[in-house]
């Protein structure tokens, strides 16, 4: 669950794709390195709310997803699942993009 959006203006209520958030773990699988009620940082990679690129393209996923990172910005896990948008590369999250099995090339198939 999100507690705070890092670097957000005072009147920004919600986090978007590419924002770093402070979150608390509400539910965890057993025998994992992270447990319930741990406070972590994460990067939002997918949102159900549509994300508007600067050139007018709108992208919307079917789920909300984030990748847990540490204080320095390195992902805590070794792999990520699902599609990742190319915008993260411009926001200096190329590490997550390089771990992604599938990246979305937004400027095609139109």
């Amino acid at each position, binding site marked *: 669950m999100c507690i705070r959006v890092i670097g957000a203006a005072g009147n920004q209520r919600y986090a978007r794709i590419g924002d770093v958030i402070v979150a608390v773990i509400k539910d965890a699988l057993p025998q994992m390195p992270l447990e319930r009620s741990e406070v972590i940082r994460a990067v939002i990679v997918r949102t159900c709310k549509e994300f508007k690129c600067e050139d007018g393209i709108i992208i919307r996923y079917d789920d909300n997803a984030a990748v847990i990172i540490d204080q*320095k*910005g*390195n992902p805590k896990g*070794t*792999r990520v699942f699902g599609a990742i948008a*190319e915008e993260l*590369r411009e926001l*200096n999250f*190329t*590490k997550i*993009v*390089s*771990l992604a099995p599938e*990246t979305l*090339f937004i*400027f*095609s*198939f*139109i």
Partner: protein
Amino acid sequence: MRGAALQGPGLARAPPAAVPLHPRPRRAGFGGHHHHRGAPLRSDLLLLLQQPTAVPLRARSPPSSSASSNVNPDTGEGADELLDDLLQEHGEVVYSAGGAGSLASEADEDAECLSLAVSLAKVASEVKAADIRVLFVKPIVYWTEFFIILTAFSNAQIEAISSKMRDIGEQQFSRVASGDTKPNSWTLLDFGDVVVHIFLPPQREFYNLEEFYGNATTIELPFETQLQ
């Protein structure tokens, strides 16, 4: 249902008659924009493409992009080979949007990226980085062409490697790197077509990028033998 039913769902399997085929030039990678010249030519292409492939093609909704999306990517190389054969037998290029020029310029860009990658790797070996690998990931990943993965042993070494790489990129190839400015256990330098990953030894084993990109071809570096 048959893919891209331009003429409605009644387009069933048609015999491969001596239909004069006017194929489009093959799509060059992603984002190819295709000109469409009216329905009859597209249907010819469809007829000839649909018949031999026994695997059903999935229907794609926007008909305007159907000419390029007829080949279902899931069917893979089998459909491609059949299409290639057919095009060689019956093919005739009607309109080519400068296709030959783009191939040559692509090769030039590839050569430039390769030289950038090799010179960055050379710089890294001068600073005594360990286990330098250059992977050609262009067929796997579209957003970059080369990965350079190397191991450094201290923050000072990482700092030295990254500053030298940035200098080389700016002076020789006029490319500015984005990425990590401060050394990190996984430091990343992004030169656009070449992405450099600098790991500390435990992180390299933890993330294991070589396994993830195991399908990429490794580029042999000429100076590696000199180190050993």
